């Protein structure tokens, strides 16, 4: 049986992420945080029917601009992360990284180990 193909999406401000359309990604342009939040919840929870007839997530990875990702609440993440997919990954915008991405990795270490051992 052929493998299911999943889609990729990116959420951010139009002038920055427009370039990703050329790569064939699903580009979702938003203007403010409220819009971004609405879109990510919609994309992250959208299901399609897989090859085997089972329902599965439509998107495997959703990239989201850091400035929006850091304002998502814990409850939002809980909804998004219910299953193995999709992976919601914050990426820095043109302003450069705000450190949110690394802070997220740090938080994972804290969660797993109980303290931050990388310092």
């Amino acid at each position, binding site marked *: 049986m052929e*493998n*299911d*193909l*999943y*889609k*990729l999406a990116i959420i951010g401000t139009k*002038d*920055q992420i*427009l*370039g*990703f*359309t*050329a*790569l*064939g*990604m699903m580009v979702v342009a938003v203007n403010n945080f409220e819009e971004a939040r609405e879109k990510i919840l919609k994309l992250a929870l959208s299901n399609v029917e897989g090859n085997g007839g089972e329902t599965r997530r439509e998107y*495997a*990875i959703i*990239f989201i601009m850091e400035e929006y990702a850091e304002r998502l609440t814990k409850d939002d993440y809980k909804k998004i*992360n219910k299953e*193995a*997919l999709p*992976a919601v*990954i914050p*990426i*820095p*915008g*043109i302003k*450069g*990284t705000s450190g949110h*991405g*690394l802070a*997220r*990795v740090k938080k*994972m*270490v804290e*969660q*797993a*180990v*109980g303290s931050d051992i*990388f310092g």
Partner: protein
Amino acid sequence: MAKLNVNPTRMELLNLKKQIKTAQRGHKLLRDKQDGLMQKFMEIVRSARDLRKEVEEQLQTAFKNFVQASAMMYPEMLENALLYPSAKVSLDVETKNVMSVRIPNFKLNQEGNILNYGYLQTSGELDMALEAFQQVLPKLIQLAEIERQAERLAEETEKTRRRVNALEHMLLPNLKDTVKFISMKLSEAERSATTGVMRIKASLEEQAREEALKEASKAV
């Protein structure tokens, strides 16, 4: 000392002892699972940190290129140029099972040409910017993969750690205390039964002796 609320009977004692055995076995298993998860997690998270730093740098340059390129073109032109991409990306996803955590593995499928527009009205900078995006993409996917894996493992590790601690510091001591309590209560009951029997026996013997004395004095 925290003991459970049970009747101090032999039946309960047996049950509790069985429970302790199960809890100990579960505790050992969970601890092994925790160790396994932790090992895998550390492996992944280390590479996640390095890769993220690298990707963030590259991505920033790519964005800069793109914004610069788009500044040199009319916005309508830019949008037109990018409107109909011939390139397609999709992902093959396989889930792997690590210590009963399902973690995803991504494989990138790309087809088509990313520079799908007329060269007349677009700038060379745009080509370069798009190529930069193209180069970052596989790394982005890889980053997404390991970060998601790390995330899933972190969740599971935390859960397992809580369970191990709950068993080790709550359930097992409580069970042990209760077993101790019951066995003390039982042996106390046993001793009190023995002394009771001894007392009854003594008083019976006393009675018998008195009666024997009476009989003797009557006979005399």
